[in-house]
């Protein structure tokens, strides 16, 4: 049976070279970076090299990079951390979009329950935030705007530079969840109006359990976890050396020759989209151009996304019906609902996220499989006439 993985938005396979970089830190170079002796210094050197690589890949300074246990922690740390920094004062307003990842949305909602004012910006039918609407919502009490660079379900890429410029003009911090974007979209943070950025290694062929946060120098933020001097006192705990070294190598590889790699991915994506739209009553979700190079999200009318997913799995094709974190829930995707889809159309959605190892032949095989399964499922559907 074919084994086709088209769920790179959920997680990516670990790159062989990244693994090779990590292995010495599991075995020979096992020191604790805080130890004073040889093993400690060896580990510390690995840690700081990874930090330099991460900074270089993002166009940032090494001291602006904090390693975390993943994207969820990075998002929580930034949003709760900025809120705590301001919590004694009068300014208690946070703005985000309606289609953020749960790690942002739930954190902002939690702050909303603890005395902060929260604005959830709506999006248009493509999932885009309107910068002018954002500008109108910023008040003298606003402390933070957090809008994702690219959406994990529909792949829509937000105008983050424009959003950042508005925030800077108004004296408000701007954070972006770039978990899906790093490796797909270039960053040069010394030039861009972004104050904070979250990323996760396992979305760009790095290991699970490690992420990073870019925090521009002099940004006011408080820590979430207490107890040691690690990571500039912002994130205590013995550093996950193998993971961090893996992140450093993975981000270096992901951002080298990115244009050529994303160009190839885009072609594959458009081939898949074109093929899917040939099927009757299939519509594309998200923006036709302003979308992640590997992201395809369609609604297949008169079909349940989940049953489509499971049938594809039986044919060896791994896809998702939304984001992995909400998989298994019976609710239609809040992202699709926010773009104006009705519940039924939202329930028939399918996300296929391509990666660098997918081939045109796999795309064609998948298209044929989707066509067959959709025909079969619709024959059984009372809704489809």
């Amino acid at each position, binding site marked *: 049976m074919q084994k086709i993985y088209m769920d790179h938005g959920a997680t990516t396979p670990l790159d062989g070279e990244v693994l090779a970089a990590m292995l010495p830190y599991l075995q020979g170079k096992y020191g604790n970076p805080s130890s004073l002796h040889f093993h400690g210094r060896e580990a510390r050197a690995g840690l700081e090299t990874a930090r330099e690589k991460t900074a270089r890949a993002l166009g940032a300074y090494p001291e602006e990079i904090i390693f975390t246990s993943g994207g969820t922690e990075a998002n929580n740390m930034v949003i709760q951390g900025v809120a705590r920094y301001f919590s004694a004062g009068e300014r208690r307003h946070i703005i985000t979009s309606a289609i953020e990842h749960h790690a942002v949305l*739930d954190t902002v909602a939690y702050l909303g329950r603890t005395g902060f004012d929260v604005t959830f910006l709506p999006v248009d039918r493509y999932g885009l935030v309107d910068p002018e609407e954002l500008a109108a919502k910023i008040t003298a009490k606003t402390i933070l705007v957090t809008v994702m660079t690219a959406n994990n379900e529909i792949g829509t890429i937000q105008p983050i530079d424009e959003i950042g410029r508005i925030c800077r003009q108004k004296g408000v911090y701007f954070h972006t969840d770039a978990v899906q974007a790093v490796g797909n979209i270039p960053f040069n943070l010394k030039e861009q109006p972004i104050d904070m950025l979250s990323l996760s290694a396992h979305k760009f062929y790095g290991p699970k359990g490690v992420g990073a946060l870019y925090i521009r120098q002099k940004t006011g933020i408080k820590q979430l976890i207490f107890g*040691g001097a690690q990571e500039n006192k912002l994130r205590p705990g013995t550093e996950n050396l193998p993971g961090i070294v893996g992140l450093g190598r993975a981000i270096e590889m992901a951002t080298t020759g990115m244009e050529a790699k994303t160009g190839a991915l885009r072609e594959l994506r458009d081939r898949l989209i074109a093929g899917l739209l040939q099927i009757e009553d299939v519509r594309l979700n998200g923006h036709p151009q302003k979308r992640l190079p590997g992201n395809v999200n369609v609604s297949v009318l008169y079909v349940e996304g989940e049953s489509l997913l499971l049938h594809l799995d039986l044919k060896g094709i791994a896809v998702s019906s939304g984001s992995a974190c909400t998989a298994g829930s019976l609710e239609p995707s809040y992202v699709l609902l926010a773009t104006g889809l009705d519940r039924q159309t939202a329930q028939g959605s399918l996300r296929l996220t391509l990666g660098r190892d997918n081939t045109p032949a796999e795309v064609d095989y998948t298209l044929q499989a989707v066509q067959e399964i959709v025909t079969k499922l619709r024959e059984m559907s009372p809704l489809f006439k």
Partner: protein
Amino acid sequence: MFAQEAYLDNSATTRVYPEVAAEMQQVMEKKYGNASSLHRRGSEAERILHASRRTIAKILGVKSEEIIFTSGGTEANNLAVLGMARRNIRRGNHLITTVIEHASVLGPFKKLEQEGFTVSYLLPDKQGLIDPAKVVAALTPQTILVSIMHINNEIGSVQPLSQISAAVKAKNQAVLLHVDAVQSFCKLPLNPVEHGIDALSLSAHKIHGPKGTGALYLRRDVLLQPLFWGGEHEKGLRPGTENIPGIAGMALAARLSDQNRKEKADRLQNLKEKLISAIQTAHPRAILNGPRKEEGAPHIFNLSFPGLKGEIVLHALEQEHIYVSTGAACHAHSKNPSHVLQALQLKQDTLEGALRFSLSYLNTAAEVDYAATKINEVVHALKKFQARR
């Protein structure tokens, strides 16, 4: 590695068992799915997650669903202390801990004080032990949480958990007990149900597992506020895509460490006593800080060579490829003397001369013999050098 070396800093971190590294490599290469995904790749990862949870639960004698995986011991301690206090504040605002806890417990308590909680910090005796009667005496009707570590990471004192728990619960059943068991997991018998413990923190990299993974045992029915928000992972108490290779590595490391634990721990205790005796025979003025050598943890002891600065001895030993520490690794770069040793009320030169030795199941008798010989040589040489000045 060098021809002759003795890594005696296993309380800072340990090397990963080769089997664990191989297992993690296998999972990273072949089982890369997201455990939340509905397809086969996802269920493959989910199975590893469940099996790992069962392994840890079985070793502790608790239920699988009572294990929450975290990014390490520090996060587990933060989650437990901050989470239980914040979530149960309606029942009271008084908390009890000790002055010799790890920074990842003391840090959250300092934070909770800023949030309006009152904290009683208990003092140990000269051996580093907390008297259960003192814990009971500190209880007030407002007390909701007691947090006490099992084995101290700097001096190896072992707290009488069962007695503390029994005494506290006899006075007030509702008071929650958290234990930082980072140093004792797979070294000493540890059964939260028998010991009457409500929450217990563990770390993988102290038991030859990977850095970046830990766990919290949380008794069912105990209420906890999460540190992070954003998903239903780990019952919503710890959202984020699970670090499956790390979790699989932790489970295997625990299983291997727990095998023949009693024999292995007895062997460590013998090695420890042998090393202490060898040093004290050669240097009668050397002072053992904390518990007596027959007592305390099987793998940790703290020793001072009065008149010699710990850091000088550390670097001289390093030349012989013997690796020890002056205290907790997280504070190695701090200029302040250890808060644990200060609590023992040591004299200034004993404080400054303190070194921590920590063994692991991978240390051999030959390594310990080598270390004993070299430590004695190095200390003699340093003393001679100092006498000449």
